[in-house]
Every structure is written in structure tokens, then in C-alpha cells.
């Protein structure tokens, strides 16, 4: 079959595959509502590999819903959402996406160490589906190296991390400057430290896309600055950053591109153009303005 004869789904997938130069996130005419009234309406948006994109908007503007649509956690009522070139709802390469929320559900009271949280990033790599299979197949491998094969199989079935996995976990902790806290309970950390740990979890998963949903809510000002410095450094290292944020000052200072949302897209362009546009007033209301040093 020639290239022209491939089916439309395959062509669309190839066109939006980041490894083939396509976008990481691709929303096309997406509409979604929890009731008959849409929360997000006819939104088209693409995020390319290596970009640092911030989505801003007033409370209830549909930012978090848009993020859930992008990640395939919600299915659009109309339009299409694609992640790494695949239908977002069927995307099964979860380790490529690192997710950082405002707060983890059980973080406060749960007896879990920083290292245990970061190790979750490796879980997709040690799942039962990743049973060892060399070029000669499992049977050949079993005859060649019975003890090693048995050990690797037992690791895969029981979900135990290998020494290499633990090295990646420790490297991720070092990257975010949290090695000294590795054996601390996560509930004993400050908000800013906790968010660093969640970024380390994404790094341990070797994520290509980092999605953050208002990550600095409840974090002190000094930690917020350090947190954004970390995001800048990770983006400079090649990781695509998609930030849902309410702090307009920080967004304009750090992101390359701003998407202003209030049910529909009011602005999509470079951060400095956003400051000079009237999108802020239209989306947030006439009284909205930037404050020096962050905040709206």
C-alpha cells in the first residue's frame, strides 16, 4: 500500500506524532459540558514538543476541565483530543506524561516517604505487561539464563524495582534538590517541597510532557520562585511544560506562550503580547490587571 492509500486515522496519527515533528497535545474544536451548558466550547489548541505553555483564566473558566480533556480523563462531547498523536482517551503510554496537582489526595496523613512517592514514576516500567523477553523469546532466555530470567519475571510480576530503576529515582530526587529529604514522610514537607517531589516523580517516569494544575496554590512566595526556576530549567532541558495557573504575573514572566481561556479561547500567543492585548479585560473583566511580582 502506498503512503497515499493509508487510512485517515493513521495519517492523522502520523501528522500529530511529536517524534515525526507533530504536536504533543492537539485539541481540535473540543466542546465539553458536565450538563447541557458547555464548560469548554470549540477550543482548538496545539502544544509542540519543547514548548512552555500556560493556560490562564478566571475561576470556573474551564482550565482544569481543559486539562482533563487533554489528558484523556474526560471525553469531549464534540471535537477531538489527541496526546502524542493518539486519541487522548485511548492513550496508553502514561509514563510519557508527568502530572502535578495542587495537592495529592492523601498526602497529609499517609505514612509514605519522599522516595516512595518518586518511585511511583517507575511503576509503568515494572508492570506485569513488561515481562522480560529477549530477541530469542522467553523460552530461549529461560534456558540461557534461568536464574536471571526467573528473577526478572518475579520482579515484573511483583512490581519490584530494579537497581537501575532506583538509580533513576535517586537521580530525579537530586535534580529537584530533595535528596536529603528522601526518607522523610511527605506530610512533613512544606507545600513547595512537596511540589518538587511530584516533579521528581514525573522525572523518574522520564516524562516528555509535564502538566501542572495550579501547582503553587498554598505555597509560600520564596518557594514559588524556586519552583518556577525549576520549571524553567526543566523546559530548557527539553521537557514540554503545560501549566494551568491563576498567577498571571508568574505566567508572563516564565511561560513562552499564554492561552487565555474563559469557556472559549480569548488569546493564544506569546506572553509579552498577552500583556499588551485586551484579552485580560475581556476574559477576567474590566478590573483585572497585572501586579508586579505575580498575582492578578
Amino acid at each position: 500500500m502506498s503512503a497515499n492509500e493509508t487510512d485517515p486515522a493513521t495519517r492523522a496519527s502520523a501528522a500529530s506524532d511529536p517524534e515525526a515533528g507533530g504536536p504533543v497535545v492537539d485539541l481540535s474544536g473540543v466542546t465539553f459540558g458536565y450538563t447541557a451548558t458547555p464548560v469548554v466550547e470549540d477550543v482548538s489548541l496545539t502544544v509542540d514538543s519543547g514548548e512552555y505553555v500556560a493556560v490562564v483564566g478566571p475561576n470556573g473558566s474551564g482550565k482544569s476541565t481543559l486539562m482533563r480533556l487533554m489528558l484523556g480523563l474526560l471525553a469531549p462531547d464534540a471535537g477531538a483530543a489527541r496526546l502524542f498523536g493518539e486519541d487522548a482517551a485511548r492513550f496508553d503510554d502514561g509514563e510519557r506524561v508527568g502530572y502535578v496537582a495542587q495537592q495529592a489526595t492523601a498526602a497529609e496523613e499517609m505514612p509514605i516517604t519522599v522516595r516512595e512517592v518518586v518511585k511511583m514514576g517507575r511503576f509503568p516500567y515494572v508492570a506485569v505487561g513488561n515481562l522480560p523477553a529477549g530477541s530469542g523469546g522467553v523460552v530461549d532466555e529461560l534456558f540461557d539464563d534461568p536464574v536471571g530470567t526467573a528473577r526478572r519475571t518475579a520482579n515484573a510480576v511483583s512490581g519490584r524495582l530494579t537497581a537501575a530503576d532506583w538509580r533513576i529515582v535517586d537521580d530525579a530526587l537530586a535534580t529537584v534538590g530533595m535528596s536529603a529529604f528522601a526518607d522523610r514522610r511527605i506530610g512533613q514537607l512544606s507545600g513547595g517541597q512537596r511540589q518538587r517531589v511530584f516533579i521528581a516523580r514525573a522525572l523518574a517516569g522520564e516524562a516528555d510532557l509535564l502538566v501542572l494544575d495550579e501547582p503553587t496554590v498554598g505555597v509560600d512566595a520564596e518557594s514559588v520562585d524556586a519552583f518556577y526556576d525549576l520549571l524553567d530549567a526543566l523546559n530548557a532541558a527539553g521537557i514540554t511544560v503545560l501549566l494551568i495557573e491563576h498567577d498571571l504575573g508568574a505566567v508572563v514572566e516564565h511561560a513562552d506562550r499564554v492561552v487565555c481561556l474563559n469557556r472559549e479561547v480569548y488569546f493564544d500567543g506569546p506572553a509579552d503580547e498577552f500583556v499588551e492585548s485586551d484579552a485580560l479585560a475581556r476574559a477576567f473583566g474590566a478590573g483585572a490587571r497585572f501586579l508586579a511580582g505575580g498575582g492578578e
Partner: protein
Amino acid sequence: MSDPLTAALAAWLFTAANQSAALALQGGLVGVGETVFGALLWVLDQWYWLMDWAHYLTGLEMLNPRYRYMQRAVLVGLCIGVMAPLIGTFLVHRQLALIGDALAHTAFAGVAVGLFLNAVIDLGVSPYLTAVVVAMIAALFIELISETTDAYNDVSMAIVLSTGFALGTTLISINAGGLAVGVNQFLFGSLSTVSPQSAGILLALFVVIVGTVAVTRNQLLYVTFDETAAAVSGISVNWYNRVMVMLTAMVVVGAMQIMGVILVAAMLVVPVAGATQVSRSFTESLVVSVVLAELAVLLGIGVAYYGGVTAGGVIVLVAVGIYVCAVGVGKLQSVRDEAETPEMGSIETDGVEGDAGARGD
């Protein structure tokens, strides 16, 4: 051969083949069931042998070979001490501590169904088996109500708890006479009613529960800690939630023999609450909660035997006493930890590779 005759012959052959297949399947299932149960009873025999030696070495009266029911009670207690906190650790940290109570009440309905069927149609089925089935169906209903109605988890638990208890009391009241007397042992638990069959059922539940947790503990941990991040990483959150509630139903029915319907939920919660106070890591909390639960179970069974009191109540009281001690130790640990706060390191992104095109795996 005429067509109608061919059709009739084909129909006869098809029916005969179906009947043979059904009989073979039924025979196969019965055979497998008998083999599994035989193996479990063999394990029970080995346990008797071990307890006989323990009696010989320690002289403990409650392990005397004459009291096989006590030897079985100790085995069942030890199994409960492992599987209840194992599941309870995930439940407590998902703020589902009371789901055990809800499922215990539906298990009571299951017991009533078993007793009812035995009394009315002489089915001869163990009430624990019907309890397992009803509790697992109820567990799925709790998840179904939460998923389809957006109700809070405690609302779906309250609905299932009330329905289960209402069904149980209704069935018992319909079948007037001896049923109510038989129900008491399930409500309050008893050491002396652990039959070889119910010990066998518990051993089977133990293997299923421990095996399932061993294989799925990463996914269960991720879903417990951060449901959205788990979903983003590709874990089917709804599926693992269902696995969790089904395992809970099994634990509840298994523990019901000694603990009784009313107190069974305590074994899922109290040892875990104690372990949470003193443990730093999740793995440590799993191990500590099992140790605390075993301590409560063994002390409780001992006190119940020598004191002539109800085992379930004593086990829970001992567990609560251990929890109070753990709270004290936990507070001391917190003070010590606060005095040893490490310095945060600097950010190092030299080794980070985020280019999608550069991935090697």
C-alpha cells in the same frame, strides 16, 4: 435421509453434546473444588501437627490437641491478622475506613440468605459462602453507586449498609423459629464455631487476598495516594477500586467468624491507625500494622479463652490499647524529627532529557 429427520438427528446430537459438555464442565468444576478443598484441609492437618508440638513445648492449655477448635481459631486469627491490615492500610488512607462496617452488615444479609436457603430448601450450603457472594455483590454496588450518581462514598456505603441489614433481619423474621439463635454466632463471633470447613474457606480467601495484593500493590498504592496522577499514568482507577472493595468483602467475611459482624471493621482500621502513628514509610506501615494486628489477635484469643469472654470484643479492646500506645510513641518521634530538619539541595538539571524524539525505550 429426509431433511426433517436430519434436523431431528442433528438437534438430538447437539442436545446430547451440550448435556455431555455441561456434565463434563460440572464434573470438572466439582473435581477442581474438591481438590482445592482437599489441599486446604491437608494444610489444616499440618497446622494441627504444628500446634500439637507447640502445646508439647509450651504446655499452653488452649493449644491442647483435645481442643482442635482452639487450634483452628488461632490459625484463623493469624490469617485475619495479616489480611485485615493489609487491605485496611489502603482503605484507611483512601478515607474509606467505614466500608468494612458496611460490608459486614451486607455479609450478615448473606449469612441470613444461607441460613434461609438451608432451612427452606435444605440446600446445605455454608452461610460463609453465601456471605462471601452477597458481600462481594454489595461491594460492587458501593462502587457502582459512587460512579453513576456522583454521590459521596459515605452515602453509597450508608445505603448498602442499611439495605444489607434490612435484608438480613427480614429474612430471619420470615423464617421464624431456630434461625435467630443461629445468627448470634455471626453477629458476635465465636472461637468455638470455627469448623474445619470454615477454616478451609478462610485459608482460600487468605491465599486470594495476599496473592492479589502482592501482584497489584503498586497500582493500589498509586490509586490510594493520587487517583488523578494514577489515571494519567495509565492505571485503570475504576478497575482497581473494584478490586479493592472485592478484597475488602472477602476479608470481612473471613474475619467475621471470630470477630462477629459488629466488630469486624475494627480489624481493618485500628491496627492501621496505630501503625500510621509510628511508621515513616508505606512499606513499614504495612509491616507494623500486621504486627500490631497479630499481637491484638493472639492476646485477645488468649484472654478470651482463659477469661471465658467473647473473643471479638477482647481483640478490639487490646487493639485499641495498642493504638493508644502507638499515638504516644508517634508524638515522641515527631518531636525528634522536627529537631533534625535537613537542608534542601540545589536544582541540577544536567542529566534531564526531555526531548520526545530522544527516547530510547
